[in-house]
């Protein structure tokens, strides 16, 4: 097994800590090519997620489902529906299953499909898709490796810097969106980095 209920809760709580720590940085990235609310949106929503995870949960799927509903109604903006959909799809993909490396890859595949469908977006449009997609490619290669997960997500996030946004608020800036990291790609990198840390520590 890769992650159980405890690790999942730890992962989400650590993610919340990270978001509240990086709130201003994320908003600053969003201010450059958007409306400057990404950090506030994410930190507000995931604080609620963290607060909702002190109950008892039967399995990973239930934790992720609870997360999805909180994210959808508390995050707001574009990232609310997008991350909400991602968590909902992950929850559905591991329903009744133990989460091993193979199942986790299926979860990320479902989540990426959900994000693309909700945002009508594809790879290369300077969005969070550009982190989720390379992560999925890496996970499909088999053997789970926490360090590689983190590195893949980090490189993918970095690659959004040179891209031109064609979706979301940033797309109005056209070429001027180049030279800035996409805020949603950065918050997605944090999500995978925190997971890698929880698993890497052999929790």
């Amino acid at each position, binding site marked *: 097994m890769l992650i159980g209920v405890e690790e999942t809760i730890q992962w989400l709580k650590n993610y919340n800590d990270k978001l509240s720590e990086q709130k201003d940085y994320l908003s600053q990235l969003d201010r450059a090519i958007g409306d400057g609310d990404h950090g506030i949106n994410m930190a507000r929503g995931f604080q609620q997620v963290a607060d909702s995870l002190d109950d008892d949960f039967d399995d990973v799927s239930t934790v992720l489902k609870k997360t999805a509903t909180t994210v959808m*109604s508390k995050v*707001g*903006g574009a990232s609310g*529906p*997008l991350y909400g959909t991602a968590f909902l799809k992950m929850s559905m993909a591991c329903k009744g299953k133990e989460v091993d490396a193979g199942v986790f890859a299926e979860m990320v595949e479902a989540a990426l499909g959900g994000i693309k469908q*909700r945002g009508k977006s594809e790879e290369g449009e300077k969005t969070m898709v550009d982190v989720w997609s390379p992560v999925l490619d890496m996970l499909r290669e088999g053997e789970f490796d926490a360090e590689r997960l983190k590195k893949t997500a980090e490189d993918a996030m970095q690659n959004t810097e040179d891209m031109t946004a064609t979706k979301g608020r940033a797309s109005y800036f056209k070429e001027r969106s180049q030279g800035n990291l996409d805020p949603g790609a950065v918050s997605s990198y944090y999500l995978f980095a925190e997971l890698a840390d929880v698993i890497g520590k052999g929790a």
Partner: protein
Amino acid sequence: MVNIVLVSHSPKLVEGLEELLKQVVGQVSIVTAGGDEDGSIGTHFDKIQAAVEEAASGDDGALVFYDLGSAKMNAEMAIEVAESESVRLVSYPIVEGSYLAAVESSIGNSLDDILASLEKEFG
């Protein structure tokens, strides 16, 4: 009458637009969802969902107009959740589009008639 839903990042924008529409079509039901949870600029799924549900409860259907970005995404999601065939998202200019729709609704045109007019005018 077909109900009209206005979704925007700005509470003032939809309030103003509602006022504009109400001046000519007092009897058409106009439901607004503007801004974030606390009324600042942004979008909020629960708010949009509540507006869509309210409009969906009418007999003649509803048209949902939005301003940009996540307003569309949230409205789409709310319409999916409402599971009503007669609530449609329309991607036409929110001011002129909703004005045309409100006038046609007030004279008793059906959802499909109004959609056809919108397509003809702005499509």
